[in-house]
């Protein structure tokens, strides 16, 4: 975290150091003025000692670029299903990224039987069942279709599960909440292909099945299939990465990630949900009374402060930027508030443009830390009238046994030494 210059006098807007969300905007204008007058000053003529890379020409051009080796420590957090190398999940290190787009190499993963090695020349997409004409598409033909691009997040419904344990564990933001990522996805609206197959009026569900070794499948309500569902082929401008479904996946904006089936090979229209293993044994919400709700597909309104966050260490006293991400499966984020005193007082943050439907939205607010202990929290609101619940509201409504759809408010405790830790409030 960078310590910032204090130029204008900070105005406190909520207790425990929270400042006017526009404070940095005002300060940078002041800094610019100061900077330009400094340029007028005298110029030193001492000989600069140049680093090696400035005394020889640099590295050659390359066909495909890679990040700096100095950034190699920015890695996904991997957690494997016992006894396997390809089942399990890897989570996005949210606290090490800026902005709303997840780089392709850091998009979270969740596989049930590893990543298939698919040659697109041999891959086909079959659409059949309750259609008027079953059709099969080659990748080559799909590439000729008109496509649309959308910025959408994908969140696993098991995201944030560590905070469903009865004791708070000392983890980073990405370890707890990193099963969410956001990309620009480009592909063909499923409705285009279904217009070509025709739809039998009895069709109510759409099975999507992958070409992985587990042929994982999920049932999609037909209204969603005809609404904003995409057959995605590109991720942030390039072909979808193998671990995200190469050569194509289905993408259901705002719905739990598991239903956005990767390596899509087959779509079957049906009059009933297929009741696959991943919509019965898994991804069903166990209630406190022992019943289980099925097909709770939409992800809730949620936010998390990514900086400062778990296991980070603040530097010297002074002004910091609190920075985070917010999203809602129901629509668009309208507001994110932050508290520095464990929820006693709240103030609005600044939402960074662009703010898009079912996408990640970035929020930020300056905060003055002078060694006082603090508990940082954020809560988000969407345009459908939803507000992110507190931990106790979530437990009241869903209980800790629910296992999925945890969107409770995250609390990060900052102690007087500046150590940041996951806590329950």
């Amino acid at each position, binding site marked *: 975290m960078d310590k910032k210059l204090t130029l204008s006098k900070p105005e406190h807007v909520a207790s425990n150091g929270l400042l006017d969300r526009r404070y940095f905007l005002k300060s940078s204008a002041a800094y610019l003025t100061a900077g330009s007058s400094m340029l007028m000053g005298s110029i030193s003529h001492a000989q600069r000692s140049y680093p090696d890379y400035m005394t020889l020409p640099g590295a050659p051009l390359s066909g495909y670029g890679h990040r700096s080796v100095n950034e190699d420590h920015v890695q996904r957090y991997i957690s494997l299903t016992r006894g396997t190398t390809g089942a399990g999940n890897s989570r996005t290190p949210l606290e090490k990224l800026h902005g709303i787009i997840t780089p392709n190499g850091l998009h979270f993963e969740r596989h049930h039987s590893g990543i298939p090695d698919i040659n697109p020349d041999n891959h086909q997409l079959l659409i059949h069942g309750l259609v008027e004409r079953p059709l099969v*598409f080659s990748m080559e033909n799909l590439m000729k279709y008109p496509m649309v691009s959308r910025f959408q997040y994908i969140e696993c419904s098991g995201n944030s599960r560590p905070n469903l344990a009865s004791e708070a564990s000392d983890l980073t933001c990405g370890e707890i909440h990193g099963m969410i990522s956001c990309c620009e996805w480009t592909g063909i609206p499923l409705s285009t292909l279904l217009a070509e197959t025709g739809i039998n009026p009895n069709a109510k569900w759409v099975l999507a099945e992958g070409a992985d070794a587990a042929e994982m499948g999920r049932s999609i309500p037909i209204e969603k299939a005809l609404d904003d569902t995409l057959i995605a082929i590109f991720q942030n401008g390039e072909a979808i990465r193998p671990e995200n479904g190469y050569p194509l996946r289905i993408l259901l904006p705002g719905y739990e990630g598991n239903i956005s089936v990767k390596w899509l090979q087959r779509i079957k229209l049906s009059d009933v949900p297929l009741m696959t293993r991943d919509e019965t044994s898994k991804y*069903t919400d166990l209630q406190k009374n022992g019943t289980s709700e099925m097909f709770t597909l939409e992800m809730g309104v949620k936010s998390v402060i990514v900086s400062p966050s778990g296991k980070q260490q603040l530097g010297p006293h002074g002004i910091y930027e609190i920075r985070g991400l917010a999203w809602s499966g129901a629509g668009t984020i309208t507001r994110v508030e932050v508290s520095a005193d464990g929820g006693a007082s709240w103030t609005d943050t600044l939402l960074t443009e662009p703010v898009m439907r079912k996408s990640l939205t970035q929020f930020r607010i300056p905060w003055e830390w002078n060694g006082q202990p603090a508990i940082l929290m954020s809560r988000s609101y969407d345009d459908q009238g939803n507000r992110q619940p507190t931990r106790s509201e979530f437990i009241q409504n869903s209980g800790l046994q629910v296992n999925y759809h945890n969107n409770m408010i995250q609390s990060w405790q900052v102690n007087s030494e500046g150590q940041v830790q996951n806590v329950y409030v």
Partner: protein
Amino acid sequence: MYTYKNIFVITLLLIGQLALSQTPNLGETPSQEMLSSWDTTIDPLGRGLPDGSGTAEEGQPVFLMKCAACHGLEGEGLINDRLVGGHGTIGSDRAVKTVGSYWPYATTLYDYIRRAMPYINPHSLSDQEVYQLTAYILYMNEIIEADERLDKNNLANIEMPNRLNFFSYEYELP
């Protein structure tokens, strides 16, 4: 005279028509062979179940050879998921979800084993073996008898103990 609303509706219709006539229509008619070999879907009503049959007695040796190494000799769980027991724990503080205690449909068990198991060698079992293994796992969970023969006509009728505890507020379930 057109109102704005009418113009809007007509425009939408036109766009719809254009979109339809402009879609490339590059799908091909799949062969009957593709349709039947790719369509492995089994629904909760039992539609899609293949021919063949099996009993728990027949399933035991197959399970010991192909499944027990990961799931335990009696399906009690070893490296991987426990498949047996946990009855009466759902709704308590320590829910143990297994095929017997949790799963709502027996058809799901057939469908899942056929597509995904054994983990290291999926799509290697015959339809007959899948019936036998399904029967054996249901038998270990005390849902059917050792000699009860399962096939496409009776698998969907098996009453799973936790079936009625599943619900949906939004969707009609079969």
